[in-house]
């Protein structure tokens, strides 16, 4: 693509020139990392998902399925605020306490309930998110804030007890809209005295959780120039995105108990066992070692289970009752009392030449954090910086972001992490610019997009936030975007649309290009331990958290590729903080890229050890050995010794005995972006605004595909969520902040009969810094459907919907206004 060289003159946000500081294109890669498809034995094959059979037989156990293992288990229930903003003046728990079968009722004043603030954001230490939550609250800030909790002999009793608690509130004025919330006269939601917030720009006088700005070049200068010149065009657009629920299949569930060693054990549906352990220890002032978090099967996370929401309440109840306690969120609680995707308002302005070269982009983001801050700075920043990376050649870029508090549900991490909101705005904007110039939207993109060998400085435009890319920017060592576009065009029939016969029906195509990261740069750690059994199989332990994605299977394939074993001979243990090596957890698309590399290194360590045995057994030099097909082969003689023989020899041999055990950690400043192109094919009925999507095609470059079945599932599953954000998302609240969406029936989750067909396409590239060339894939396909769809509708009927969800009424209204 055309503007690669321009970037080298540009200064980074830190003032260093890229030529000084940019990481080199070359990456020191181990010889075995780059294998042609036909040389791969375990990687890139459609291995059966390791837990598939126990899932289809109903034997896979999720947290709630462990209940029967604890005969004295108590059921917990949480009393949640019925008002959006105020103070609990009085709380009378006496009737609840007297009920038969009630073991304990806890309130903010109970001795077991910590009074210090914490953050529910399960991030690495020190968390960027503010400490602004209490486990139970007197001061309530949204409908759903936990006030008290009950443990009882069963759920029915616990629910009855919660209802018997009598609460009197002093209500305060509430604010629900982010724009209103940052006005000087809006009701104040937080008292800065009782919050610990290290995020930049926090201003509780104006309900601002975080604010940050960054600039490359001279944006005002570029707009001033455009005002005087006829060959420069200025385009301004505005975009709105609503709440989205993770709709995890398995509601948040946790079982807490004290064990015979006087330690606290959790079986819990979490994406972050280690962060949960550390945060619980800190909050309850218990040594880290006295908490154990085990993760069973997890029924989906999508970022929702990165938050530590129920565990603190369950622990307090366990302490109060000295019994195991189970807390299981209801679907209603899932919708408004767990975490949600933050709504965003985005303004984009740009300057572009007649030829279609971007001269300036100015992006301003306001997000609605809801009542408490979790991921406010980092996810709101991502609304801008993630996708600006694609247009890094633009000489002048500015990004400004504000995260505002309101009296609505709490925003957290959700698949895509700000990028879906940002892609809607930026890719919708780029389409608008192309049409203004009379250019094909893809021709316009190709003049401006990033490509292989380039340096991305735009994604480090904000200096604040977690895991910043260091000065000098990010070198793009793999980028299949051009081919993604080509393959996607072919699949959707770009430029070749047959119009329906009826003159009121109009068919159109839309596209959006997309980007994400592979883990948080400079802020990840994955580790792995692998030991050999005497039969030549291996037990692999990682802290990686398979939340349903199939990460365990992918890890076994990576290890098997190194060891010459079959993937089914690598048994992966679920993460458990007492047993597995450390891992930051399942978020930021990090597992395959970061933990996968740790697994590869650990397997290599083990292979070195087993080669030592093999060299002796074959009487050949170890440098000449290779491992494949379940055995180790000598190059010269072609003779082999099986992994099983090596396994027995290592443990029962006469000469030397040592168990083969490999281990490694991996942490990296790299975070190579996967790329992709989303296409939508739609027919709109101009009489009603109703539309039908014929197909959604997504072509993705995620480097080497470790397991095509699993990767396809990630892409179609993420496209489903992206489609929901486009057409089905959004919560409504009444004027008091009471949520209208309390169940699946009120929310636009796509079902089998409403979900349009989804076509995933893989464009393989080789990312030298990833395990066998892999990058991330789990989040990126959540980014593209809203912009591709608004662009397709614009193509079909000439009007644009710039606020989600896209509905027939909005299209109809836009058509009426023309």
């Amino acid at each position, binding site marked *: 693509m055309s503007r690669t060289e321009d970037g080298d003159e540009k200064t980074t946000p830190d003032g260093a020139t890229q030529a000084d500081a940019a990481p080199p294109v070359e990456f020191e890669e181990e010889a075995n990392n780059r294998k042609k498809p036909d040389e791969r034995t375990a990687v890139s094959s459609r291995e059966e998902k390791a837990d598939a059979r126990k899932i*289809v*037989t109903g034997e896979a156990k999720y947290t709630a399925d462990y209940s029967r293992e604890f005969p004295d288990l108590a059921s917990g229930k949480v009393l949640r605020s019925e008002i959006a903003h105020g103070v609990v003046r009085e709380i009378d728990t006496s009737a609840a306490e007297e009920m038969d079968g009630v073991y304990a009722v806890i309130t903010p004043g109970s001795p077991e309930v910590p009074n210090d603030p914490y953050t529910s954001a399960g991030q690495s230490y020190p968390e960027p998110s503010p400490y602004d939550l209490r486990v139970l609250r007197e001061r309530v800030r949204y409908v759903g804030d936990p006030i008290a909790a009950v443990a009882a002999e069963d759920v029915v009793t616990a629910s009855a007890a919660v209802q018997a608690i009598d609460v009197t509130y002093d209500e305060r004025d509430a604010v629900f809209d982010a724009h209103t919330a940052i006005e000087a006269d809006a009701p104040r939601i937080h008292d800065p005295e009782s919050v610990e917030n290290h995020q930049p720009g926090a201003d509780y006088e104006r309900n601002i959780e975080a604010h940050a700005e960054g600039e490359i070049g001279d944006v005002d200068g570029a707009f001033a120039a455009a005002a005087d010149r006829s060959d420069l065009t200025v385009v301004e657009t505005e975009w709105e995105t609503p709440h989205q629920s993770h709709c995890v299949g398995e509601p948040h569930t946790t079982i807490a108990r004290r064990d015979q060693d006087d330690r606290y054990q959790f079986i819990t549906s979490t994406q972050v066992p280690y962060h949960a352990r550390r945060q619980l220890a800190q909050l309850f002032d218990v040594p880290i070692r006295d908490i154990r978090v085990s993760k069973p099967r997890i029924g989906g996370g999508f970022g929702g289970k990165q938050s530590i929401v129920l565990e603190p309440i369950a622990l307090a109840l366990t302490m109060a009752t000295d019994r195991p306690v189970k807390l299981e969120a209801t679907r209603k609680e899932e919708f408004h009392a767990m975490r949600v995707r933050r709504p965003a308002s985005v303004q984009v302005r740009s300057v572009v030449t007649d030829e279609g070269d971007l001269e300036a982009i100015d992006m301003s983001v306001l997000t609605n954090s809801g009542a408490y801050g979790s991921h406010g700075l980092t996810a709101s920043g991502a609304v801008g910086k993630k996708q600006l990376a694609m247009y890094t050649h633009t000489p002048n870029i500015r990004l400004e972001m504000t995260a505002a508090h309101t009296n609505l549900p709490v925003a957290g991490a959700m698949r895509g992490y700000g990028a879906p909101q940002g892609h809607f705005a930026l890719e919708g904007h780029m389409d608008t610019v192309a049409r203004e110039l009379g250019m094909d939207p893809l021709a316009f993109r190709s003049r401006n997009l990033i490509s292989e060998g380039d340096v991305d400085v735009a994604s480090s435009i904000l200096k604040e936030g977690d895991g910043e890319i260091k000065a000098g920017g990010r070198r793009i060592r793999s980028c299949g975007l051009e081919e993604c576009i080509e393959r996607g065009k072919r699949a959707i029939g770009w430029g070749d649309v047959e119009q329906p016969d009826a003159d009121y029906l109009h068919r159109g195509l839309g596209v959006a290009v997309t980007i994400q990261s592979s883990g948080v740069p400079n802020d990840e750690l994955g580790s792995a331990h692998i030991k050999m059994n005497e039969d030549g199989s291996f037990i692999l332990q990682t802290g990686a958290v398979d939340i349903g994605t199939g990460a365990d299977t992918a890890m076994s394939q990576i290890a098997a590729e190194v060891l010459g074993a079959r993937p089914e001979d690598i048994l992966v243990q679920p993460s458990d903080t007492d047993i597995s090596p450390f891992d930051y957890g399942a978020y930021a698309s990090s597992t395959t890229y970061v933990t996968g590399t740790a697994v590869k290194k650990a397997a290599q360590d083990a292979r070195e050890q087993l080669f030592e045995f093999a060299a002796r057994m074959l009487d050949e030099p170890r440098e000449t050995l290779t491992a494949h097909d379940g055995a180790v082969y000598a190059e010269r003689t072609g003779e082999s010794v099986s992994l099983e023989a090596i396994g027995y020899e290592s443990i029962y041999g006469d000469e030397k005995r040592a168990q083969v055990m490999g281990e490694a950690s991996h942490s990296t400043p790299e975070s190579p972006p996967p790329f992709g192109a989303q296409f939508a094919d739609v027919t709109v009925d101009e009489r009603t605004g109703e539309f039908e999507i014929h197909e959604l095609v997504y072509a993705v470059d995620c480097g080497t595909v470790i397991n095509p079945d699993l990767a396809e599932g990630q892409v179609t599953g993420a496209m489903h969520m992206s489609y929901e954000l486009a057409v089905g998302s959004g919560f409504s609240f009444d004027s008091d902040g009471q949520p209208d969406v309390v169940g*699946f029936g009120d929310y636009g989750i796509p079902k089998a009969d409403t979900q349009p067909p989804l076509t995933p396409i893989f464009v393989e590239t080789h990312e030298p810094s990833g395990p066998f060339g892999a990058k991330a894939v789990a989040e990126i396909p959540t980014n593209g459907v809203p912009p591709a769809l608004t662009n397709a509708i614009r193509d079909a009927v000439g009007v644009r919907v710039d606020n989600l969800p896209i509905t027939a009424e909005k299209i109809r209204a836009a058509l009426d206004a023309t």
Partner: protein
Amino acid sequence: MEVNLTLNGEDTTLTVDQSDTLLDALRNAGYTGAKRGCGTGDCGFCTVVVDGASVKSCLQPVARVEGATVETIESLGTQDELHPVQAAFVDNAALQCGFCIPGMIMRVTQFLESNPDPNEEEIREALSGNICRCTGYEKIIDAVQDAASRLSNERAMVSDGGRPVPSGQSCVDCSTCSGGERE
């Protein structure tokens, strides 16, 4: 109170609370394959088959199944010998987190009994009460189509007097018998 029913082919007496739903009663008795995703009849994770009809067990008061025949996921195949519908889900990678899958499979099993040769639209319609948050449904639709052909092969062989395919095995890549190529 006690409820008598035929559960997965066996005469069973469950000791339950009056207010229990069928889902509560099953899970309390250790049949935890059926999952609770909502409790309001909207997700389908709790689907079981009652007297031949697929039913959302979270909506069914347990007292109502007195005398009924109830089948749960536990009645189908084992990990070594999967039922054809289960095998189709495994072979088509039609699952991720798996939380929806037991309910989905019970719905599919019952649906294919009533419509052994469905087209895609009928499949989508039949699954409209069973949410899946992970897969985007594509592979699930493939699995249902595959399951339909596995089941019809099985039936064809039986009426042929041929050997039925043991559940859990497909006719492709199987060396148990000489014939039995899939048509």
